[in-house]
């Protein structure tokens, strides 16, 4: 893991050096917000406790292209607000979602209602195919812990099941919903206290890895082909 961080530091230093050299060619001068954004991200990623799987310069640049696209959709201010996030996810600004709200809140580590690039990149790094599974387990646990009390309660599970069914227009009777949740808790709640704690969650998902399927985005591995970085002409070679 320390090898990963060192590798990343090396790439980040090259990235920063590269932009020092190019500063005359960039569209802004020193203090160019885009350069600052990248500096911030590098520092944040280096000092973060998540061992980031984004180890190449072009991956970060490609992620930045995606960020720019999403953050300029409604207000072009270099930040993603809740509406822009909904738009990016559902392709319409008219959809509200319990889950999108929860995801947005988890991304928004500064709790100021908007996502800067470093929050965006850090949160998405958990979804990389190479990210440690523990990070994915933690993130998904926090996602489902709606009231953030450190437990996934039965009532929260029911709320999420009902929301999912409503979204897809599927109709299941309350009886059927209750029995699905019963069976789930039977297996998951080994301490029999009516709620799922972090340890129980961990054991459950390790036994059923498909429960973490939505915690991995293959796109992140191929992101450089989806978003070629044609704005920044980095002279750094990807190792």
């Amino acid at each position: 893991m320390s090898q990963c961080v060192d590798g990343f530091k090396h790439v980040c230093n090259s990235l920063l050096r590269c932009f020092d050299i190019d500063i005359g060619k960039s569209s802004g001068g020193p203090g160019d917000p885009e350069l600052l954004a990248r500096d911030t991200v590098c520092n944040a990623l280096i000092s973060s406790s998540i061992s980031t799987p984004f180890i190449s310069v072009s991956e970060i640049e490609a992620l930045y292209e995606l960020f720019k696209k999403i953050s300029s959709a409604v207000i072009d201010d270099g930040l993603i607000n809740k509406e822009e996030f909904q738009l990016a996810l559902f392709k319409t600004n008219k959809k509200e979602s319990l889950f999108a709200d929860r995801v947005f809140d988890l991304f928004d580590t500064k709790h100021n209602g908007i996502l800067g690039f470093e929050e965006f990149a850090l949160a998405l790094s958990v979804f990389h195919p190479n990210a440690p599974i523990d990070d994915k387990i933690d993130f998904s646990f926090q996602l489902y812990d709606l009231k953030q009390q450190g437990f996934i309660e039965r009532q929260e599970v029911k709320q999420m099941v009902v929301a999912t069914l409503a979204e897809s227009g599927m109709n299941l009777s309350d009886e059927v919903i209750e029995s699905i949740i019963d069976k789930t808790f039977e297996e998951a709640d080994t301490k029999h206290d009516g709620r799922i704690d972090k340890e129980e969650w961990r054991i459950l998902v390790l036994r059923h890895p498909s429960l973490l399927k939505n915690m991995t985005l293959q796109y992140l591995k191929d992101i450089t082909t989806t978003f070629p970085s044609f704005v920044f002409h980095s002279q750094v070679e990807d190792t």
Partner: protein
Amino acid sequence: MNAFELISTSKGLNLGLLFEKQMVLQVAPSLYMVETRKSGGDTLEFHKFYKNLTTSLKDIVWKTIDEEKEGGTQGGINGAVVAS
């Protein structure tokens, strides 16, 4: 079926959608803007597809951005304003 299996199928939890390109903006109650963007692949094929799409929708498409520009296509973003 596991409750969490069901929950994880929800659209709001599938961030892969962030990478998808088609956007529908509700501009007014009966007016929608559809943006079709090519993310990869053959530009010529995309253009054929796009021409096909706009021709079939001729009755409800007001104007495509292509028709506003003259010639000059970059195979990038194409847009159409559609009345619903």
